[in-house]
């Protein structure tokens, strides 16, 4: 009997050890960031393409207020409510004084300065495809934004999802750093893929998720239930989105659909962001969307 208890205990301990090993946070390859200098002007385009302000500024912010990344917006989901943190350059409440590697770990690996996993409400499953120079440029731009001393509010996440260590397993299962649309792409399609899959993180809302919140890459961009439970994000594969490239460019510039309805909801943020990029980037996104396999 006692032998059975010992054996069970050994299995439990081994399992726990394995859990600790598999769930441990990983850092970026520091060598990739060694000596990189950020260019704030280029970083501004990365900032808008990445949609940082849409979640980290106040919900109704416009103009200069969009650059105050004090956090506070709430994102309800099946796992609880995530609250966007303060990522302004405030050294106490924000991320002022972080090194480039600390910043890169948060943005691309979902690992905070304290070494703990961050929740994937931060789309690091897309940002992990960013080139290190863009991460450096982004940091240079964000370092120059106004600081806010507003404290970050805690997430309201229920058990067991509030155990951050378990996110290590989630990452093992669902985080992928390869492109969804592979193969030989033209330079324009490649640029569009970079914007759509790495920066603008289209798939985070437009791709369905499984019960554990992992993206179903085989149904890429085929539409999904809104995380807050109200309505759906539309299917934008060529099976349903039959707009011409010019129509997509117009939509991402002015927000007008081909029927001249106008964009609303969270997508209105995305259009505001995309409208700040050069037109060639919007054309690239349109070219990329035509490559996506149709899903009905």
């Amino acid at each position, binding site marked *: 009997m006692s032998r059975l208890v010992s054996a069970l205990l050994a299995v439990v301990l081994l399992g726990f050890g394995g859990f600790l090993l598999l769930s441990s946070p990983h850092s970026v390859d520091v060598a990739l960031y060694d000596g990189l200098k950020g260019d704030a002007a280029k970083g501004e385009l990365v900032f808008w393409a990445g949609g940082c302000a849409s979640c980290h500024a106040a919900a*109704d912010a*416009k103009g200069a207020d969009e650059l105050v990344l004090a956090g506070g917006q709430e994102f309800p989901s099946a796992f609880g409510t995530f609250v966007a943190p303060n990522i302004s350059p405030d050294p106490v409440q924000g991320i002022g004084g972080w090194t480039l590697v600390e910043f890169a770990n948060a943005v691309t690996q979902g690992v905070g300065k304290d070494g703990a996993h961050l929740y994937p409400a931060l789309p690091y499953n897309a940002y992990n495809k960013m080139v290190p120079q863009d991460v450096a440029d982004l940091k240079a731009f964000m370092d120059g934004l106004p600081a806010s001393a507003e404290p970050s509010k805690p997430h309201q996440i229920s058990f067991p999802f509030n155990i951050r260590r378990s996110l290590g397993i989630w990452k093992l299962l669902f985080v992928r750093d390869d492109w969804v649309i592979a193969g030989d792409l033209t330079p324009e399609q490649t640029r569009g893929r970079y914007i759509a899959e790495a920066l603008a993180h289209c798939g985070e809302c437009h791709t369905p998720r499984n019960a554990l919140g992992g993206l179903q890459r085989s149904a890429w961009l085929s539409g999904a239930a809104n995380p807050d439970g*109200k*309505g*759906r994000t*539309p299917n934008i594969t060529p099976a349903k989105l039959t707009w011409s490239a*010019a*129509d997509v460019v*117009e939509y991402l*510039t*002015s*927000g*007008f659909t081909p*029927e*001249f*309805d*106008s*964009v*609303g*909801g969270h997508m*209105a*943020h995305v*259009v*505001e962001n995309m*409208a700040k990029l050069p037109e060639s980037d919007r054309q690239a996104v349109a070219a990329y969307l035509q490559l996506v396999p149709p899903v009905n």
Partner: protein
Amino acid sequence: MKKRLIAFTTMAALTAFGVYAQDAEDPFADAVETRHGLMLQMASDLGTLGGMAKGEVAYDKATASKAAANVAAIASVISMAQFPAGSENGKSADSYALADIWAKQDDFLAKITDLNNAAAAMQTAAATDGDAIKASMAQLGGACSACHKAYRQPES
């Protein structure tokens, strides 16, 4: 037989009352229909301008100017008159209007002013050329979506 007649009469009465009750409960049907009509006419005129902006249709000054004048006229009509308190999503059939319209009425009205300014800019652009229309489309679209982002319940 008598029982069946009573049941039938009750059903008929309930049905009639139901229909009546539905009408009585939705005094905003006209306001909502007016809003949608204004938006549809706006979309039609924007379609004329958008075709020229995208280069799908050749620029024609008279046609563009007429469409832009219509957009400006519709923008000037939009006011709280079409948004009586209570004509909101969930309370009035077919309404996508969010309750914040009334809670943040000053901001809502400011966004209508923005729309009128953008429509005036489009009138100038429409008298110029297709490129000017294209450039003006972004400002006009921004005015439309600013309001739709804050005050319209997303579809689907």
